[in-house]
């Protein structure tokens, strides 16, 4: 069965490693913070200027001066720090952040990503996404395999204006975990109960399928 958003987040959380600084984008990526594996410690950075984000505040304890890049009220953990936006992107551009997780409208088999604009229709702006994808060594995209019209978003080439070129290394969708290398998608894992045929059918880009595709282990 296809994963829900929390399932995608849970699977991505398995990629976390002890001691990493991690930047989580808006949407599904934000949920990753709820599933940090036991025994490891990570710190969350938000590009508006905070390191060491904690959970959402208790009702009534929101501080309007303390938000994340999604403009959500947050809290901080012991050891947190605040800094200006230039310093924040110094961390990102200077590759001090070990993992970036973000959403996408389209991903292509050479690692291009589009997630900021639909010409003539939707223009929200790129925010920090272009800096993040251009700089991060380790980018995981959290997204749905298809759009609402049922068209694949895992493509040979992106059709929307790009956010970054050749930067995505791994994609986790409601159906599959895929690695991007040498200009192709490599199917690594499938969601529990999802068939390889369904993944093949819903993937427009070139997909390399090994003989055995293990199911994700989400326990």
């Amino acid at each position, binding site marked *: 069965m296809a994963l829900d958003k929390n399932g995608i987040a849970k699977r991505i959380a398995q990629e976390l490693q002890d001691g990493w600084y991690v930047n989580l984008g808006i949407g599904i990526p934000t949920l990753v913070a709820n599933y940090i594996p036991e025994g490891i410690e990570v710190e969350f950075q*938000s*590009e*508006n*200027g*905070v390191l060491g984000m904690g*959970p*959402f*505040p*208790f*009702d*009534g*304890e*929101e*501080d*309007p*001066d*303390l*938000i*994340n*890049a*999604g*403009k*959500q*009220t*947050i809290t901080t953990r012991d050891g947190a720090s*605040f*800094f*200006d*936006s*230039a310093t*924040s*992107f110094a961390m*990102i*551009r200077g590759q001090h952040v070990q993992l970036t997780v973000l959403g996408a409208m389209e991903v292509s088999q050479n690692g*291009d990503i589009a997630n900021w*604009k639909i010409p*003539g229709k*939707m*223009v*929200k*702006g*790129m*925010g*920090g*996404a*272009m*800096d993040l994808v*251009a*700089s991060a060594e380790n980018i995981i995209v959290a997204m749905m395999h298809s759009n609402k019209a049922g068209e694949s978003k895992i493509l040979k080439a992106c059709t929307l*204006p*790009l*956010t*970054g*070129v*050749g930067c995505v290394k791994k994609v986790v969708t409601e159906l599959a975990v895929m690695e991007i290398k040498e200009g192709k998608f490599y199917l690594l894992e499938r969601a529990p109960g999802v068939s390889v045929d369904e993944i093949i059918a819903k993937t427009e880009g070139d997909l390399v399928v090994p003989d055995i595709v293990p199911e994700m282990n989400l326990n």
Partner: protein
Amino acid sequence: MNKVVKNPALALAGITDGMTLMVGGFGLCGIPENSIAQLVQMGVKNLTCISNNAGVDDFGLGLLLQGKQVKKMISSYVGENDEFERQMLSGELEVDLIPQGSLAERCRAGGAGIPAFFTPAGYGTEVAEGKEVRMFNGKPHILESALTADYAIVKAWKGDTEGNLIYKATARNFNPMMAMAGKITIAEVEELVPAGTLDPNQIHTPGIFVQRIFKGEKFEKRIEQRTVRPKN
């Protein structure tokens, strides 16, 4: 070197039609609310505003958009403002969308006398069109230029009479770089104290970057996305 002015009207004196303004804040967090209200009252038009966001429809810089006071916005993200999107898609409003890190660094560069720098952000995208590309460490980078403004308007938590500023939490955001990049920088603060009160080790924006400072009368501090967990 007393830089205190009594009210927003005196602080913003000299801002006229067609000027370029930097306005600090991220969303509705850390924005100079009292100065924005004053800009609305002054009715200055044809402004170019450099600000990471454009506020929401009825608060923050959204108020200037509503009044059609803005000719051009230079921002990284405008997703929370329908009027902005409408004016942009209809062509009423010129918009220059810039990667957030490049925006922050371009403001800092403007304040720091660095006319241009290379960054990897935006390579291979619309943002890179017409810009010089150069390889460093095997990776393509684009040349970005400094941003400055006729006036920078920032919001701080505490300030002293010499213009030294301290920000609170993530309300810091773009304010420090914009304070550096304004030909004239105006700071509105929640608390205004005599010089010598703030610890010199703990100043975020040294007073040299600030020309005028005033205590804001009222800070509404709207929250854009109130997210909470229930108390057990």
